[in-house]
């Protein structure tokens, strides 16, 4: 089959590789009909996530048709149309029983590696480095889906691929970011980053009843999408004025947002000062893995007693973390890779009810064979790119 493989920093290729086979009773094989490039794939592409290996198939946002099931899968049949959550979760361990699926204790067969980095292993993830198991990803014609009796959501309607594809990751991820904010009505929420996850964090905060949602980015076209499609009430373009903390205070009568969502992660472009320069040098020389300007500003801007929700992806260590602001302002930090299996059904219902049509983020549609161009377009934000869907 054809698959998108990582072949070193800033290089992906579409190559012929063996077709996947069932390896365990609870596996299924899915013929992929649509797959997407995630912002977090860019962290792999850029070479900032350790434990990548040449030849790794990328991609953790995919959907398609079941073409084979193992003996232990009784909820799916050949021909079923499914969306596949990006975390691989067994459904049996303590974490899964508590619906903390991205913390599955069993699905990562490189637990020893992950333990060295994080103290504990986290769940396996498709196409997302060897730290999360070394599973082949879904930017391909086929994928093997382990624990297929737990993850995939069976679709039984005529919604288009683009309307449901993002249930695999970015819609639930953005929703979880908003869910962390404990919105009861009347809050002001600031969302750092108006990329695809940020768009869904904004839309979700609005759905959950926030009164004002402030989008922060450096690209006007993304801020326009945030305002016109996701429902942001205010926008801040930090390319025009880099003092985001002061702007957020000005927009909130000095209080600061009740909760802040970091939908940026480890490669913040934000910040024009000396600290950002130090971050860039340290990251380029691999002395730290994170450029943390967005998270620092988020913590400094958040109102005392507020919530810091981190859904942007980080991989290792950050310097100059504002511990004093975090502690003295009494902030609560909530973070994590999304527990997609927990959110996927209720969010599918929201799509079916017409509460949201997630396809609004799609700006580019390409054949799988064009994946190398797609990565470049997405990375450099060319042609007003927000989200790329690949068709195998």
């Amino acid at each position, binding site marked *: 089959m054809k698959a998108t493989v990582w072949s070193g920093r800033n290089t992906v290729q579409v190559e012929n590789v063996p077709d996947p086979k069932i390896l365990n009773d609870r596996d299924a094989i899915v013929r992929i009909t649509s797959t997407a490039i995630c912002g977090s794939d860019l962290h792999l592409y850029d070479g900032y996530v350790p434990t990548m290996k040449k030849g790794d198939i990328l991609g953790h946002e995919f959907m398609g048709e079941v073409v084979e099931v193992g003996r232990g899968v009784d909820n799916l049949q050949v021909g079923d149309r499914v969306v596949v959550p990006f975390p691989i979760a067994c459904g049996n361990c*303590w974490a899964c029983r508590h619906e903390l699926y991205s913390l599955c204790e069993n699905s990562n067969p490189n637990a020893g590696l992950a333990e060295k980095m994080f103290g504990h292993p986290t769940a396996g993830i498709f196409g997302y480095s060897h730290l999360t198991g070394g599973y082949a990803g879904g930017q391909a014609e086929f994928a093997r889906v382990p624990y297929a009796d737990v993850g995939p959501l069976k679709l039984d309607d005529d919604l288009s691929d683009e309307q449901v594809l993002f249930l695999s990751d970015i819609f639930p991820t953005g929703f979880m970011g908003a869910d962390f904010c404990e919105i009861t009505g009347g809050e002001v929420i600031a969302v750092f980053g108006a990329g695809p996850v940020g768009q869904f964090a904004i839309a979700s905060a609005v759905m959950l009843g926030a009164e004002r949602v402030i989008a922060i980015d450096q690209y006007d076209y993304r801020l326009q999408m945030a305002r016109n499609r996701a429902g942001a009430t205010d926008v801040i373009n930090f390319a025009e004025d880099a003092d985001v903390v002061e702007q957020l205070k000005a927009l909130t009568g000095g209080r600061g947002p009740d909760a802040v969502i970091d939908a940026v992660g480890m490669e913040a472009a934000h910040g024009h000062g000396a600290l950002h320069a130090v971050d860039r040098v340290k990251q380029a020389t691999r002395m730290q893995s994170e450029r943390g300007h967005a998270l620092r500003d988020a913590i400094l801007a958040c109102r005392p007693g507020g919530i810091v929700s981190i859904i942007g992806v980080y991989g290792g260590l950050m310097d100059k973390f504002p511990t004093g602001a975090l502690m003295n302002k009494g902030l609560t930090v909530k973070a994590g890779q999304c527990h997609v299996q927990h959110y996927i059904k209720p969010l599918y219902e929201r799509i079916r009810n017409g509460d949201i049509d997630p396809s609004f983020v799609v700006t580019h549609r390409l054949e799988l064979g064009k994946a190398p161009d797609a990565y470049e377009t997405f990375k450099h934000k060319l042609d007003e790119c927000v989200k790329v869907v690949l068709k195998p």
Partner: protein
Amino acid sequence: MSNHAAITVNRSREEVERLWNAEVNGTVTFADAPGDRGTEIHVELNRSGNPVSKLLSTKALAKVKDELRRFKQRVETGEIPRSDATPEGERVERKFKQRPAQPLAEGELEKAGLS
């Protein structure tokens, strides 16, 4: 260097003790985990203080951890999770000799005992 490895299995102590079949080079004890958290398995490695055996026992400890994880995986999920990078499931020998994350060719499947 620790001499100790432990894991918690989300099953009753009675069940864990009954199913326990992992081969580990050390003293094994079981304990109820607090609350509704299953059963703790503790392994204390047997080893002496000289530097050579210390070096060997680092690997021995990693092997014990592999066995504990595989036991937990079998008991909790009914199978050993296999990725394309580590088709045999978790093995310390694979840690720095990973396959690329792409499907195995026919011959490799046979080699890994999976065809």
